[in-house]
């Protein structure tokens, strides 16, 4: 890896210095987009540092998604970060082998990761440890056919059309939701504007107790 490529992005240099062997690689794609490959078992630590370090301050999580390239290759979990104060983009990828699709949830760092990680679980089957609400989000809750965006998933599903129709109609649409999702029993937590003044938003590691409601079975 040429050093000048890494020097083009200050966060990549800082990641190298701080985490060393947990930084598995670096790529420059589409001209100026920096992609950093990180070790999945240290992803939480790295992402938390990127959010909290005053020189990085990636306070906006653009996206969490995943890529399956097929052919038995590992599935990549992709974190797309943006630092509003520094106006800096950074993409991190964690490669998970097909027999160990599990990674730490980053909902304690960015609340917006909640639905994004649910989508990755729904579409690719990546388990997020300590996720507050690990349910499907796009497919029906009782979906039994697997994870549709995986390369080994047949385009038209595993069940016959008749079985898919029967299963679809045997569901109660109101089963998809829990009361906390509909806003019941939740109080908005407002952050004083002074805490934003230093350019840093506070990170709440406490989970909302109303979220941990027992699931409807």
């Amino acid at each position, binding site marked *: 890896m040429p050093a000048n490529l890494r020097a083009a992005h200050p966060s990549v240099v800082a990641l190298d210095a701080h985490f060393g062997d947990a930084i598995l690689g670096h790529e420059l794609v589409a001209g100026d987009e920096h992609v950093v490959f990180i070790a999945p078992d240290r992803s939480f630590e790295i992402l938390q540092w990127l959010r909290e370090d005053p020189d990085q301050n990636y306070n906006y999580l653009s996206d969490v998604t995943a890529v399956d390239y097929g052919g038995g290759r590992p599935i990549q979990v992709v974190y797309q970060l943006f630092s509003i104060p520094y106006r800096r983009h950074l993409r991190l990828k964690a490669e998970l082998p097909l027999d160990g699709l599990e990674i730490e949830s980053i909902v304690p760092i960015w609340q917006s990761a909640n639905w994004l990680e649910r989508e990755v679980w729904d579409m690719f089957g990546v388990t997020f440890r300590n996720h507050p609400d690990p349910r499907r989000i796009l497919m029906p809750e009782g979906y039994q056919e697997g994870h549709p965006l995986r390369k080994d998933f047949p385009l038209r599903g595993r069940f*016959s059309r008749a079985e898919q129709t029967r299963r679809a*109609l045997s569901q109660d649409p109101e089963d*998809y939701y829990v009361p906390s999702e509909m806003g019941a029993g939740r109080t908005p937590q407002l952050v004083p504007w002074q805490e934003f003044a230093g350019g840093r938003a506070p990170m709440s590691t406490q989970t909302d107790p109303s979220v941990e409601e027992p699931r409807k079975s």
Partner: protein
Amino acid sequence: MSDVIRSTGAGADAAPASGEGSESGGLMRGIFGEGSPTFLTTRVDFVVNWARRNSLWPMPFGTACCAIEMMASAASKNDLARFGMERMSFSPRQADVLICAGRVPYKLAPVLRRIWDQMPQPKWSVSMGACASSGGVFDVYSMVQGIDTIIPVDVYVPGCPPRPEALIYGLMMIQEKIRGETLSRHHEHRSEPAADVGRPRASAVEVAALSLPFGNSTRQNRASGLVQTMPTERPGDRIP
């Protein structure tokens, strides 16, 4: 002056000065003028169907771009209200026609079925666009291959999306269908066994026929023999 009145009136007692005595000769002012009958004979079927077909209230079930065209057909240029669909009824209990405009995924299928079950009889349904009618290009794991597997459909409107004129034509075809209905065959027209509520309309065999070996949308291409639709083997996709 009086000659003129007498000549146009129905009789000698016509056109009194006060106007109160118009019924004095046993002749009331009928619907076609004085002396014409004050009642009509007709068939109950005709009157009922006339009332029904000229006050169809649509239940818009818009899920995709077809819904934009449905809104355009209700807007001023095409003005669906000309045909009696004055009010888009967003409540199924007050609706007569279900317009399913757009693709329906399997997650939405029970919702569509429930809305159809909630609509009171008499009711009709329009499947608007390619996706609602056959699944369209969405021959994938998540999409209902035609809402006629879920609910009964009276009129299919083709197009992707159909123009407002096409939707209005489809609704006029529903009006024509109502014109041919008769109360003596009410049970046949409006049969809705309680056991059918919440169940697929099509049988399992019927649904399976839509999907083998390719979907509902490519079925016609296969039948024509002009398009080759053999499955693609890609063993290298995933090493188990």
